[in-house]
C-alpha cells in the first residue's frame, strides 16, 4: 500500500544560498554590496583619519574667496578680485570653447582626409595615409607641445612688425599673425546695425525655407528647381543691400601695433590656436579612419544600383552612399568628440586657461585644496561627457536604420 506523500517540504538550508540558482544571485549581490560598503567605509575612514592627523578638513568655502590671479582669455567678466568660483566658470567656458572649435575643424579635417584617402590618385591617397598614421601613432601631448613650439618659434613676434623695414607685415593690413596669437579686425556695431543683422538672420531662414520648398516640390511633382545659385543669392543679396541702405553701419576696427602688443581688433591667443589646431589635426586623423571605414562599409552594390537607376555620381554620393555611411560614421564620431573634450584638459601644457588650468591648476596651487578641486574637476568632465553622449545618442537614434 502506497500512500501519496507530499513532496518533501523544501526547508531552507544555508547551503541553498550557494547551490540553488534561485538564491545564488541574491547571495552574490549581498556579498558584493557588503564588499562595496566595507571598502568604501575603509577608504573614507582612511581619508578622515589622514585628514584629521594632518589637521585638514574638507570645505568648499575657498570658492568664495577672491582668486587673486588674472586670466588672459575670459569670455565672461573676470578680474583678479573675482572669487575662485568665477575663475572656474571662466575655465569651463574656455574648455567648452576650445572643445567646440576643435570638434568642428576636426570633422572637416577628418572628412577631407578620409575621402581623399580613398581617392584613386596614388600620391594623394599615400599622403593622406601618411598623415593618418603619423598623427594616430604619436601621443597627443607630444603633438600639442610640438605645435605650440612651432607657433612660438616660427611665427614672428609683435616686435618684428615694428620699424621702417619690418621683418613681418600684416596680411591685407588687417590680419596679424604673431607668436602671441592672431589679430583680426573686430566689427563695430553702429546705429542701425541691428537691422542688417536681422536681415541676415531672415535670409538664413529664407534659404532654409527655399530649399525645403524645392525638395517638397521635387518629391511632389518631380520638378527640379535649381538649388545652388538661388540659395547663394538669398543668402547674400538682401544683407548686402540692407548694409548699404542703412549707410554702412558696421565698420571694422583694425588691429594696430601700439605699445608692446597689437591693440584693437580681436585677439585669438596663441595657446588657444595651438591647442585648437593640435586637437583638430590629431583627432582629424582618427575621424578620417572612421569616415573611410564608413564609406567602405556601404556595399558596392548600392553604388551600382544607384548608377543603374541613372543617378549622376554626385547624387549617388549624396543620396545613396553618404546617408548609409553616416550611420556607420556617427557612433565613433561621438566618441571622438568626447575624446576632444577630454583631451582639451592637456591645455596646461600650453598655458591655455581651461578648467584644468584654473580650478585644477592655479586655484589648487594657491589654496592647497587638492581633494576639493580634483573632485569638482571630475564632476565637471563627467557632466559634460554624459551630456554630450546623451545628446549624440539621441541624434544617433534618430538617424538609425529603421527596420521594419
Amino acid at each position: 500500500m502506497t500512500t501519496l506523500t507530499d513532496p518533501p517540504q523544501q526547508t531552507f538550508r544555508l547551503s541553498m544560498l550557494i547551490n540553488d540558482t534561485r538564491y545564488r544571485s541574491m547571495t552574490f549581490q549581498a556579498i558584493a554590496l557588503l564588499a562595496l560598503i566595507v571598502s568604501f567605509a575603509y577608504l573614507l575612514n582612511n581619508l578622515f583619519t589622514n585628514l584629521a592627523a594632518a589637521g585638514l578638513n574638507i570645505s568648499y568655502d575657498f570658492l568664495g574667496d577672491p582668486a587673486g590671479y588674472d586670466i588672459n582669455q575670459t569670455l565672461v567678466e573676470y578680474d583678479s578680485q573675482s572669487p575662485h568660483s568665477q575663475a572656474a566658470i571662466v575655465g569651463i567656458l574656455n574648455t567648452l570653447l576650445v572643445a567646440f572649435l576643435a570638434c568642428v575643424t576636426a570633422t572637416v579635417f577628418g572628412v577631407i582626409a578620409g575621402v581623399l584617402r580613398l581617392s584613386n590618385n596614388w600620391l594623394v591617397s599615400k599622403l593622406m595615409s601618411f598623415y593618418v598614421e603619423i598623427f594616430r601613432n604619436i601621443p597627443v601631448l607630444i603633438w600639442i607641445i610640438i605645435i605650440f613650439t612651432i607657433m612660438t618659434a616660427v611665427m614672428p613676434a609683435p616686435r618684428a612688425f615694428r620699424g621702417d623695414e619690418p621683418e613681418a607685415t600684416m596680411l591685407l593690413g588687417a590680419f596679424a599673425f604673431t607668436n602671441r596669437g592672431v589679430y583680426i579686425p573686430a566689427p563695430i556695431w553702429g546705429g542701425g546695425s541691428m537691422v542688417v543683422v536681422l536681415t541676415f538672420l531672415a535670409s538664413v531662414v529664407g534659404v532654409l525655407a527655399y530649399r525645403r520648398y524645392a525638395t517638397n516640390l521635387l518629391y511632389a511633382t518631380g520638378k527640379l528647381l535649381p538649388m545652388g545659385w538661388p540659395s547663394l543669392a538669398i543668402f547674400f543679396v538682401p544683407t548686402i543691400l540692407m548694409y548699404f541702405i542703412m549707410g554702412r553701419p558696421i565698420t571694422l576696427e583694425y588691429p594696430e601695433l601700439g605699445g608692446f602688443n597689437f591693440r584693437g581688433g580681436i585677439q585669438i591667443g596663441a595657446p588657444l590656436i595651438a591647442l585648437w589646431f593640435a586637437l583638430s589635426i590629431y583627432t582629424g586623423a582618427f575621424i578620417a579612419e572612421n569616415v573611410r571605414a564608413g564609406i567602405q562599409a556601404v556595399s558596392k552594390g548600392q553604388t551600382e544600383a544607384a548608377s543603374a537607376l541613372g543617378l549622376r555620381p554626385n547624387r549617388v554620393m549624396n543620396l545613396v552612399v553618404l546617408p548609409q555611411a553616416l550611420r556607420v560614421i556617427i557612433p565613433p564620431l561621438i566618441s571622438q568628440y568626447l575624446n576632444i573634450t577630454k583631451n582639451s584638459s592637456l591645455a596646461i601644457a600650453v598655458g591655455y586657461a581651461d578648467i584644468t588650468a584654473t580650478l585644477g591648476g592655479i586655484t589648487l596651487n594657491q589654496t592647497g585644496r587638492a581633494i576639493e578641486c580634483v573632485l569638482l574637476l571630475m564632476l565637471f568632465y563627467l557632466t559634460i561627457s554624459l551630456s554630450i553622449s546623451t545628446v549624440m545618442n539621441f541624434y544617433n537614434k534618430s538617424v538609425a536604420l529603421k527596420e521594419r
Partner: protein
Amino acid sequence: MKKSVLLGALTVAGLAAGAAAAGTLDDVKARGTLNCGVTTGLVGFAAPDANGEWNGFDVSVCRAVAAAVLGDPSAVEFVPTTGKTRFTALASGEIDMLARNTTWTFSRDVDLKFTFVGVNYYDGQGFMVPKALGVSSAKDLDGATVCIQTGTTTELNLADFFRANNISYEPVPIETNAEAQQQYLAGACDVYTTDASGLAATRATFEAPGDHVLLPEIISKEPLGPLVRHGDDEWGDVVRWTLNALITAEELGVTSANVGEMASGSGNPEVKRLLGTEGTLGEMLGLDADWAQKAIATQGNYGEIFAKNIGEETPIGLARGLNAQWTNGGLIYSPPFR
C-alpha cells in the same frame, strides 16, 4: 598576467611603510633614508646633473639634514614635486620635508598646517625684459604680455602689483621654467617674471645673457625655506636647527675645511657647543653629539653652500644681498646655540 609586479611593488611599498612610528625622526632613522621634496628642476636650487646626481642650494639643505640625522649626506631620496603635488606629498607623509623654494606665507603656515622651520633664501619677485625693449621700470609695462611660471605665489603678486599701479597686462601662465624661457626668448612675451633668483638662474643659461636686464622693482617678499608638517615639533626642531647650524657656522667661521680642527681646538664655547664637543645639544635633539659637525663637514656652512651653488662665482651669479649674514648687513640670522 602581471600580478607579481603589483604584488612586488606592494611588498616594496609595504617594507617602506613597515617601520611606522609616532615621530618623523624615528621614521627617518628606522628607514635609513630621508625623503626630501624638491623641484622638478631649477638650476642652482635643485636640479639633477648629467649623471643624475641632484645638486643645488635646496638640495644641500636636504643633504645637511640627512648628514645630521643619519650621518650620511647621500642617504636622501629626492622626490621631485610640482607646485601642485608638493603640499599633498608633504601632508600625506610621502616626504619628510619639503625644500622646494617655497614661500612662507600665512595661509600655508596656518590653513594648510605646515611649519616653516626657517628661511634659507630671502627672495622677491622680479622682472626680466630684453634690453632692446628699452624699459627701465616695471611701471612702464602697461599692456605688456607677461610670462609667469605657475605654481608659486607669482601670479598673485603680479596681479596685485599691476592692480595697485593701475596698469594692464596679459598673463601667459607656463608650467615649466624651460618652456617659459622658450616663450620669452621667442618674443611671445615681453617680460618674464618669477623670483629674482630664478630669473638670474634662467638668464645665466641664455646664449647672450647680456641682452636681457632685470628691472629694479622687486614686487614681493618671498622668504623661501624648508617646511615640515604641523604637529611634529621634534622633527621640526631637527630641520630648523640643522639650518641654523649651517648659518651659525658661517657666522663663527666654521667651514667644511676647518670643522675638524675647530671641533677639537677652538676656544670659543659656542663653536664647541655647536660642534658637540661641549654640552649636550645633540642629545636634546635626539641626535648624535657631532650632528652639526657632520652636516657642516659634508655640505659646508651656509656661505659655502651659497657660493658653491648660486654665488657670484657660478653661472647664476647671485650676490649675497639680503642673504648676507646679519653682521654684514643681511637678514641671515640664527638664534644662538645655547
